[in-house]
């Protein structure tokens, strides 16, 4: 295997391949940075154009777009609180407060380095551990997926914000929003109130942009003549050099990359879950967890390395078993088939140059991020904050409108986005955290479907949820987080009552 891997390196370094990597990464960063456009759409549009090219060039474009978009999504998340892709939700938690504090440059640099490191670790995992990790995928059934979703939901609700009951209420609100529409298993309509629009449920992107992006824009609009962003936002200080970042964040990067790789191999889990779990873990281990959410760069480092580490590892089940774990993996399989290659275990023996070359390309694009992301894209996009606030508000609203309209081509989506924006604004003012709402919309349906599948398979035997070893491991982890938070809350109460007496 390692011989085939080394033989494929010159293939990935061909001029055509290198050009496709650069072009793909630039397109990816741009696509990721524009809300409403996603890497799936970009790859789907690009693939037919590459039909006449060598498969290595086509896959180079895919690798570039895939890795580039993951970093691109963090740019509007940091600068405007708009997650460019759903995987960038966790980046907004600390990235945007950093920009407000005048550390936008540092936040973008941290995101760029973290994405690159996550991507590199993920590509190395794909190259070296693919066959072994593919077996782990098969050990996860609906019961384990149910607990993964519950873990993500409960831990973020408990860890984000100061009040556990407010966090849980936000998460449950998200779960209820996610219930609207036709039930995927029984086909029954739920909470549609006879409205045709609600039959399809709420699109995640519409809820996401409404809750996250509209409230800060409304706040910006309210502050006349006041500088919303700090003018020194892009001045990077001496301690913020690349070596300084490596020294400060290597532990966070390592931990988050491992989490990202583990989540990536699970079909359907996605970069958003990887980022949120990484963020949770970073906050849990930090000596100053209370600074998370107020502009702690470790939060950005954890979220970005987590979501990028998901990229290449998501290809593991698709390349080794022929089972696509996400839509992009399915498109990669499609690209291979367009070029006459059959995905599955035989791919490694029949076309080693292409499959191992693709692994190298994923590694190279992760490295390219440092160059293209840091030197070109970040500086270009950072200019938007120099715009006067009175112009930034309408242009951002137009950008949101085009992003939302292109999802379904439906104007009603814009009104729905604005309504969610008002809900988000109100929740903000009432001190309810917004992240659990989005997570509820995202993970609620995942938890429900897997719970019901478990019940169907086990013929309504509830004990199955608690007896499988991986499920049990996740339950123990969840209990640890809940108990540690409870312990912290009790200790805090004890301290404050002592002080009062």
């Amino acid at each position, binding site marked *: 295997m390692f011989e085939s891997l080394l033989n494929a390196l010159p293939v990935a370094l061909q001029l055509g391949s290198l050009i496709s990597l650069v072009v793909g990464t630039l397109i990816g960063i741009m696509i990721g940075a524009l809300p409403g456009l996603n890497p799936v759409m970009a790859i789907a549009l690009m693939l037919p154009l590459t039909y006449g090219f060598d498969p290595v060039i086509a896959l180079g474009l895919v690798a570039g777009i895939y890795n580039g978009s993951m970093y691109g999504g963090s740019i509007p998340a940091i600068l405007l609180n708009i997650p460019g892709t759903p995987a960038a939700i966790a980046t907004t938690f600390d990235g945007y407060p950093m920009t407000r504090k005048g550390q936008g440059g540092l936040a973008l640099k941290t995101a760029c380095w973290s994405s690159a490191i996550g991507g590199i670790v993920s590509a190395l995992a794909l190259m070296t551990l693919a066959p072994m990790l593919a077996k782990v995928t098969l050990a996860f059934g609906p019961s384990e997926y149910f607990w993964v979703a519950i873990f993500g939901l409960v831990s973020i609700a408990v860890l984000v914000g100061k009040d556990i009951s407010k966090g849980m*209420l936000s998460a449950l609100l998200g779960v209820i929003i996610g*219930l609207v529409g036709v039930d995927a298993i029984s086909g*029954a309509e739920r909470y549609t109130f006879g409205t045709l629009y609600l039959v399809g449920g709420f699109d995640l992107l519409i809820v996401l942009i409404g809750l996250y992006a509209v409230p800060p824009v409304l706040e910006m609009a309210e502050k006349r003549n006041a500088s919303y962003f700090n003018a020194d936002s892009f001045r990077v200080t001496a301690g913020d050099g690349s070596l300084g970042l490596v020294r400060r964040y290597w532990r966070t990067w390592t931990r988050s990359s491992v989490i990202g790789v583990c989540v990536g191999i699970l079909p359907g889990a996605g970069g958003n879950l990887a980022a949120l779990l990484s963020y949770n873990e970073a906050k849990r281990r930090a000596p100053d967890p209370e600074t998370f959410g107020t502009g702690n760069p470790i939060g950005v480092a954890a979220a970005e390395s987590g979501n990028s580490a998901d990229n290449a590892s998501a290809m593991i089940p698709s390349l080794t078993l022929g089972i696509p774990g996400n839509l992009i993996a399915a498109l990669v399989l499609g690209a291979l088939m367009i070029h006459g290659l059959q995905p599955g275990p035989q791919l490694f023996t029949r076309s080693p140059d292409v499959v191992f070359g693709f692994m190298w390309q994923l590694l190279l694009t992760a490295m390219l991020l440092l160059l293209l992301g840091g030197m070109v894209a970040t500086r270009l996009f950072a200019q938007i904050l120099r715009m006067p606030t009175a112009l930034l508000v309408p*242009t951002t609203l137009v950008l949101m409108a085009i992003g939302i309209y292109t999802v379904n*081509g439906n104007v009603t989506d814009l009104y729905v986005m604005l309504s969610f924006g*008002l809900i988000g604004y109100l929740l903000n003012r009432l*001190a309810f955290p917004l992240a659990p709402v989005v997570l509820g919309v995202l993970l609620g349906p995942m*938890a429900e479907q897997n719970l019901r599948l478990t019940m169907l398979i086990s013929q309504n035997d509830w004990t199955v949820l608690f007896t499988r070893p991986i499920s049990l491991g996740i339950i123990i982890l969840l209990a640890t987080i809940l108990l540690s938070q409870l312990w912290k809350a009790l200790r805090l109460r004890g301290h404050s009552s002592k002080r009062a007496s």
Partner: protein
Amino acid sequence: MPMTYRDFFSGIAFLIIGATTAWMGKDFFADAAYIPIGAGILMGVFSLPLIWRSSRSLLARHPSSQPVMALVDHPGRFLATLGCCLVYYTALPSVGFYTTSALFIIVLAPVLGERRPVVVLGITLVFITLLYGLFAMVLRRPLPVEFFLAS
């Protein structure tokens, strides 16, 4: 309004949402009702500590020590922005995407305090041209057609 009042009323609102969700959920078909009922009940349960804490401090006349933000900082500009958004979304399908977007920026920027017409017009022109280049020429995404081009 102090934070305790806000907590009290938001707790009541969540209790009502939870109870309604669970009550409507009981009519769903078999296992499709599990999560709606569960989520509704849990929402009700988690709203109780919020109501309890806030009502206790209200009865004890202890104002909350939490810093309180106004619900809306500047109602005038807030409502003007919302109003412009509603007009923009309503006009979008009939007037066309690029025309409406350009007019939206040109109108909202002065409302929010930008008093340099050349800057407003310049940025609008550059921004709309960039959007047109990307969405109409490169990505070819279908957007509402301009009124002067519609046949």
